[in-house]
Structures are given as structure tokens and as C-alpha cells.
């Protein structure tokens, strides 16, 4: 069941659109903010609420990489793998992160703290190589050890 807080936010989001379905991406993101990811159950409940079939909503949910249809850790690290970062040390940064966290791309640490995901250009190329943790951008990560202290600030 969708919570009262979720429903409130979703109703506010839907005001920008003339048809409930049109607000489905924003609604998915609201539910995800509350629960961390979109479970099958949440998907069914939200679909019903937006007058969509679950399949219809899932076809949208699975298209967008920032909608998580699998469980993620408490913090999601997006590692930019596009060309501006590639040219200034993306590979070293990725290796360092994988070693530090002992996980590969698409995986979550055993303590559920971090999920590591590849990301398209984050639009901060002037401070490449860059990553994003939750809503925060961290750039200039050359040499890659610079990321260690940053990770410490996410519990």
C-alpha cells in the first residue's frame, strides 16, 4: 500500500499534468525516495493508483536508469564512464572504487551501504573524473585515492 506521505507528494506531482499517467515517472521517483527502490508490490500499487496496468508502468520503469527495479544499498554511487572522464582517469577511479568496496559494477556491498552503478556523462566535465553519490556530485578525483575520504562521510 502507498503511504499517506507518498500519496500526498504524488498528488502534488500530478498537478503539472492533465492526465494521471503522464506523471508516472515523477511518481515512481517519489515512491523510490521513500523506499529506496521499486518493489513489484509498489509497482502494482502505483499502477493501480495511476490507472495503468502494472506492465505498462513497468515498461516505463525499466526504461529509465534512475528508477531502480532491484534493491540498492543505502547510497548509490554513479560512476561517470563517458568520454571526458575516460580521458582523465576514469579507469583508475573505477578500479580503485571496486577494490575499496570489494564489489563490481551493478553490485551492492555486503553491509548494504553502497551500490556501484555506471552512469552516462554527469555534465560536470570541467571537474572530471567525477562520480555522484545520491544527490551529491564529487569531481576532480585524480588521483583516485581522493575518493576514500568522501566515502567515509556516507554511512
Amino acid at each position, binding site marked *: 500500500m502507498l503511504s499517506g506521505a507518498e500519496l500526498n507528494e504524488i498528488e502534488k506531482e500530478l498537478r503539472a499534468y492533465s492526465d494521471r499517467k503522464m506523471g508516472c*515517472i515523477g511518481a515512481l521517483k517519489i515512491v523510490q525516495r521513500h523506499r529506496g527502490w521499486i518493489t513489484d508490490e509498489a509497482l502494482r500499487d502505483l499502477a493501480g493508483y495511476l490507472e495503468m496496468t502494472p506492465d505498462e508502468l513497468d515498461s516505463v520503469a525499466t526504461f529509465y536508469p*534512475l528508477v531502480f527495479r532491484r534493491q540498492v544499498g543505502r547510497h548509490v554511487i554513479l560512476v561517470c564512464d563517458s568520454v571526458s572522464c575516460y580521458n582523465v582517469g*576514469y579507469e583508475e577511479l573505477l578500479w580503485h572504487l571496486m577494490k575499496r568496496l570489494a564489489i563490481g559494477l551493478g553490485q551492492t556491498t555486503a553491509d548494504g551501504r553502497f551500490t556501484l552503478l555506471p552512469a552516462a556523462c554527469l555534465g560536470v*566535465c570541467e571537474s572530471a573524473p567525477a562520480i555522484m553519490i545520491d544527490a551529491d556530485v564529487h569531481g576532480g578525483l585524480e588521483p583516485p585515492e581522493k575518493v576514500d575520504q568522501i566515502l567515509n562521510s556516507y554511512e
Partner: protein
Amino acid sequence: MSNAERPLTGDFRADGRPLGIGEYEKTGGYLALRRALKEMSPAGVMDEVKDSRLRGRGGAGFPTGSKWSFVPSGADVFSSGPKFIVANADEMEPGTFKDRILMENNPHMLIEGMLLGAYATGADCAYIFVRGEYFGSARAIGKAVAEAYGKNYLGKNILGSGFNLEMHLHMSAGRYMCGEETGLLNSLEGKRAIPRTKPPYPQVSGFMGRPTVVNNVETLCNVPHIIRNGAEWFRGLSRGFSGDGGTKIYGASGRVKRPGAWELPIGTTAREILEEHAGGMRDGFRFRGLLPGGASTEFLLEEHLDVRMDFDSVQKVGSRMGTGTMIILDDRTCPVGMQLSLQKFFARESCGWCTPCREGLSWVVHMLGAIEEGQGEMEDIDLLLEQARLLAPGHTFCALAPGAAEPLGSGVKYFRQDFERHIREKHCPWKIKNS
């Protein structure tokens, strides 16, 4: 350069925080809107923008005034009912970060540009489509929209003129295809961001089947300045370097001394941007080539650096200005690895609608991966060029695949010897050297 020569960025605060509505008004903000509503007809605003020779800053360089003029007006069926204007703030072109800078620093400029575009085309509803990772832009825009409503620059009967405009912020959730204007419209309707057939063009049948203008953020930010200072002033900003009007926010990333973005007269040379503004290459790195305007443009070499960065000049040397934010390749980065990074991006972002893009790009990635790992064959090089031909315009539904073909074809052509070396020596020469 003085602030007057840098209309887009000259008024930014030194601390990088967004201008509030009062500060924006002090710099002359919303004067253009006041003038348009009081003294100008919608057609007058459109003509001024046409005269200014402003061309779209989203990458394709389409003249903005003409784009607007395709929106039906008058008493036909399209003119009754809602019309829309959408700001394309998806900015997912790799290497591009100019629209973020504009939104984070001066969000009201975008709002005023959209107001003027809406007035000129008769739109009564506006959306700002922001990519999901741009939290800073979304915060700045959200606050600015609320401030603009508070002062009746948005809403009903704006400043007593009878003109209405509602404006909404839409936060996206990733996927490069959202920046393609018809994919964007599908996404805004809550669907997968797959492209639509053109024609009909969005100006006739766009959001919810209604007339819709989609413009890039930087394009729209120019409009208040054109209306405030006139088309002639705007044309003069380019200092005769180019037939195009205005300035351009250029950028540089890669191993240059000062990666960043600078507002300069449109038509400034690539060399000046690279050497003066970006400070040249970092010590110990040599320049090998650049992509002039994002990932989906052709490589240029040292011999092309004197090209003027405007839409027509860059085309003459075999590339495109694109977004005007250059990505630099240095001698210590492997051109095959860089190409692999580029093509992985395109392959992953392909929406899967057409075969050359869906199948071709994953094949390209596979071949490039093999070459980079030292397992490529000489025939692969021609196969890559063949794929670049198959991805070119005319074979696919949207411009994503042609965009992928541009760095692929030119990269293989210009750095062919490096590809051959990988194959001959059966390893990546850069990996050995760097490890």
C-alpha cells in the same frame, strides 16, 4: 570582455549561487518581457528573433525564429486549445555542461526566455525538462519559478497584459534519448523516450498532439537579451567572426590546464579556446585531436585548430559545432579506448527501435573491445568503417545513430595507425606504457 559582451554569463554572482529575482531585475531582468507585453506584438517578437540570426544551441543550429514561425496561428483548429513551449535541459551529450551552468547561476534568464517564446508562439503552458542528475539546476529553477509566480511574471493575466503562462519543472530519470526532442515529448507524457515520426513536426503536433516548441536552454537564454537590446546589437556580438548572431558558451574538457566553459563571440577559433581560455595542454601531455561539440561530432586534428567555431565553418572542415563544448584527446590516452568509451555510451543509450543502431552499435563495441584487448583482426578496421556508413543519416529513425557514426568514422580514419598497432602488437600500447 565587458559584461555587455557576455550577456549570458556576465551577470553571474561571484560565489556561484543563483541570482534571486531582485538581483535579476537589477541587471535588467524581465525588462524584455515588460517591453514585449506592452509594446510588441507576438509577430514582432518573432521577427526580432529571426533578425538576430540566433541559431539553436542544442546542437543542430536550426534558426530559432523560423522554428517558432512553424507554430500555427490564426483561426484554424490548431490554434484553439493549448500550445506548449518546452526547454530542453536534458543535457546528456557527453562532454557538455553549459546548460547546467546557465540554470544554476541565472535561472530567471531561462524563465524570461521561455516567457518570450511563449508570447511569440501563443503558448500558454511551459515545461522545463531537466535531466534527473541535475539537482542543483532543479533547485535553482524550482525556486525561481515560485518567485516569478509571486511577482506575476507567470500565471494568469501577466502584468495586466491578458497573457497567461503556466510553467512546470519536470525532473527526468536518465536516458540520452530524452534529449531528442520527440523522445523528450514522449517522456514528458510519461512514456518510454522513443522518437516519433517527423513530420508532423512538434510545432504542429507535439506534446499531447498539440503545437509545441522545443528549444535548448542556451538558445532560450539568449532571447531576453535580443528583445531588450535589439537584433542588430545581437548580431554585432559575433564581431563579424561568423554570420551567426550572438555569443556561444564554449567549453573544454580533457587534459588541458584549465578545463571549463567561457562565453565568447560565436565564431571564435578552436585554437583560441584551447590555447588561451583552456590554457593549452597540461605539462607532459601533447594534443592529438578533439571532438568540437560533444561526443556525437567528428574528430578534428591540429591542422583544423584555426577553424572558426560556428555552425557553417566547422561543417566545412568535416565536423559539426554541436554543443560547442570540446573534448580533448591527448597523447597519453589510447584513441581506441576513447572510441570504446564513446561507442559504449551510444550502444547503452540506444532505444533499440532500429536495427543498425540496436545491433550495429553493440557489434561495434564488441569489435572495439577486442581490438583494445589485443584480439582484433585487420579486417575489423574496415568493418568498423562499414558500420559507420550503416549508422549514417538515412538508415535510422533518429539522430542518435548518425551521432555515433561521426566520432567512429573520423576516429578510425585519423587514428588508423593506432588501431593497426593494437592488432599487430596484440595489446594496447598505452596500457603497457602506463602500467
